[in-house]
């Protein structure tokens, strides 16, 4: 991490959005006292992460990216273990366990061994466990990684209900932009250990006026010529090259557009309203770790690409995109290049990410080992029944 600083309000859902290896988990580990920052500090629920680690740990619940349940114990026993570890008295503990298992709808499976649970059930149990000791702040590290869309939606609903009914402040990390869009009051875009943007999803999207037109070509090698040609047109605000279309999650976006975008307005309440002022719960501060040398330059990655054949897609930000499509198609056609498809959409957080970092959030990077590890988590999450 490279000198990041932010503050969080009580009752807020803040999303850390960034590609693998951007520093999301590292930040959470520092805020939860598992990792000591090399310099700087932070305050969580009024407690300093270096001076008062135990008080910090009591204030937070942490749902880790990798599963951390004891699968040889039952759901109830995992909860009980946690309750005792946090020193909750017996009567209160039993009542609270019952309550939390009901919240995540696992009451009927409470006495089954966790190894018989599905991926989504395990995730829900971890969330319930993270909340057992009445934390003020819940950290969720990639809460829906590897879960199917239906389970993901149900986890999202649980998270929103907790935030609303139990008044719990939530920090979550994700590399799914639609997750940040759906859940978060504010999204913090993080890349190479730095904060590149912090605002409500709606305002972030509003920064990109106009529409996004995504052109996918049959032949990757033509892309540079076309780009050079289009860059001369003054009605195109910006152009980005990506491996695949930036519009491939249109389905899920449509789903929550229909559901009425519940997050947006809530985030209007003052942003960054002064460190430590009034009743603002402060999380954050300066965190520093030695900066890792970026292993690639942005343009380079885009031009070389990661998959065979290189990038095949141009994303154009234009005013009144629908009316410009014929003109764009004509231009491309005149240049003698074959188009595979044209897509038009309103700017999404994907596009915000692309324009602020120059990269598509889904273009995998990170080490080979990291890839294998994530693959394993995804496999485990899908889980045996």
């Amino acid at each position, binding site marked *: 991490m490279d000198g990041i600083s932010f503050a969080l309000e009580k009752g807020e859902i803040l999303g850390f959005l960034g590609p693998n290896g951007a520093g999301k988990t590292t930040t959470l580990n520092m805020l939860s006292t598992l990792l000591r920052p090399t310099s700087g500090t932070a305050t969580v629920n009024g407690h300093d992460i270096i001076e008062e680690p135990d*008080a910090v740990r009591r204030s937070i619940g942490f749902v880790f990216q990798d599963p951390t349940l004891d699968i040889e114990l039952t759901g109830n026993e995992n909860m009980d273990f946690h309750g005792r570890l946090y020193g909750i008295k017996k009567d209160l503990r039993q009542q609270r366990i019952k309550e939390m298992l009901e919240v995540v709808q696992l009451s009927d499976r409470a006495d089954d061994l966790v190894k018989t649970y599905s991926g989504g059930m395990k995730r829900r149990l971890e969330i319930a466990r993270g909340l057992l000791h009445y934390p003020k702040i819940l950290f969720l590290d990639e809460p829906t990684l590897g879960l199917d869309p239906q389970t993901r939606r149900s986890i999202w609903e649980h998270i929103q209900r907790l935030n609303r009914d139990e008044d719990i402040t939530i920090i979550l990390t994700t590399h799914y932009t639609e997750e940040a869009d759906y859940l978060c009051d504010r999204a913090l875009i993080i890349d190479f250990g730095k904060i590149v943007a912090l605002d409500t999803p709606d305002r972030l999207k509003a920064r990109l006026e106009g529409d996004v037109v995504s052109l996918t070509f049959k032949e990757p090698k033509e892309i540079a010529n076309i780009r050079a040609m289009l860059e001369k047109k003054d009605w195109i605000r910006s152009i980005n090259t990506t491996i695949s279309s930036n519009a491939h999650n249109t389905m899920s976006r449509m789903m929550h557009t229909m559901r009425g975008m519940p997050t947006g307005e809530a985030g209007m309440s003052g942003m960054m309203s002064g460190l430590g002022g009034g009743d603002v719960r402060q999380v954050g501060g300066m965190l520093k770790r030695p900066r890792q040398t970026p292993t690639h330059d942005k343009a380079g990655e885009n031009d070389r690409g990661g998959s065979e054949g290189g990038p095949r897609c141009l994303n154009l930000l234009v005013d009144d995109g629908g009316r410009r499509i014929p003109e764009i198609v004509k231009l491309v056609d005149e240049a003698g290049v074959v188009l595979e498809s044209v897509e038009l959409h309103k700017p999404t957080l994907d596009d915000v990410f692309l324009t602020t970092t120059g990269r598509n959030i889904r273009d995998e990077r990170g080490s080979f080992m990291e890839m294998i590890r994530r693959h394993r988590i995804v496999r485990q999450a899908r889980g045996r029944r």
Partner: protein
Amino acid sequence: MVQPLSGQAIYVVLLRELKRYWRAKSRIVASVAQSFFFLAVFGLGLGGFLGGVRGSTYLSYIAPGIIGMGLLFGSVFSGVSVIFDRQFGFMKEMLVAPVSRTSIIFGKILGGAATASIQGVLLMAVAGVMGAFQPTVRLMFGALAAIGLMLLITAGFVGLGVAIGSTITDFHAFQLISTFVMWPLFMLSGVFFPIDAVPVPLQVAMLLDPMFYGVELLRWCLSGSITLVLGPFGWLIGLGVLIGFNALMVGLGTYLFSRAEV
């Protein structure tokens, strides 16, 4: 380095070890069966060929050593299981809680000692049924003393296991631990032959093995005989060595564990 201990945390980690032990029935069965084979084949088979040792049958000579084997393997593996806790993520759940690592490791050591000792009691019963011990009044007290002794022996070896498990991060190192740590400790503990009957270099190696003192003391409790190599107060020396080893290993395990990366 001194961290506050939490009784509740120690207890809950201990409880988890017991529950996990109890649920892994196949492991209990396998371990008891293995010891039974050792007792049957070596005790009855080799015993018929060799005759007795120190005025008792060969079976009753090796029985305390075979119990010791169960204690040794059970306790070291239970300590090494911190590797699995780390691998399967449960370690994070414990470490992010507002309790000291020392509490967690004390719970782990007590839990490992308890489960390995339960194992030892089961093996003692099996050996008893096979007729390894003379049914006397002395045996009743001896068996009770043996249970206390088992806890003392195993705590140190769980500590050793935790120390190993906190240092290595690789499953594959298991085979190495088994070959270079467990088996030598077992073979040199005087299970199969009395120390007085072997060449001096081997005697020295046996005296360096803490398990040797454990087995000799178990033998003293269960069949009344003890080596004369340690002198007339051999049991006291044995007890002293075990207590010293315990303190060393529990300290080392705690130290290495609290320094280990998550």
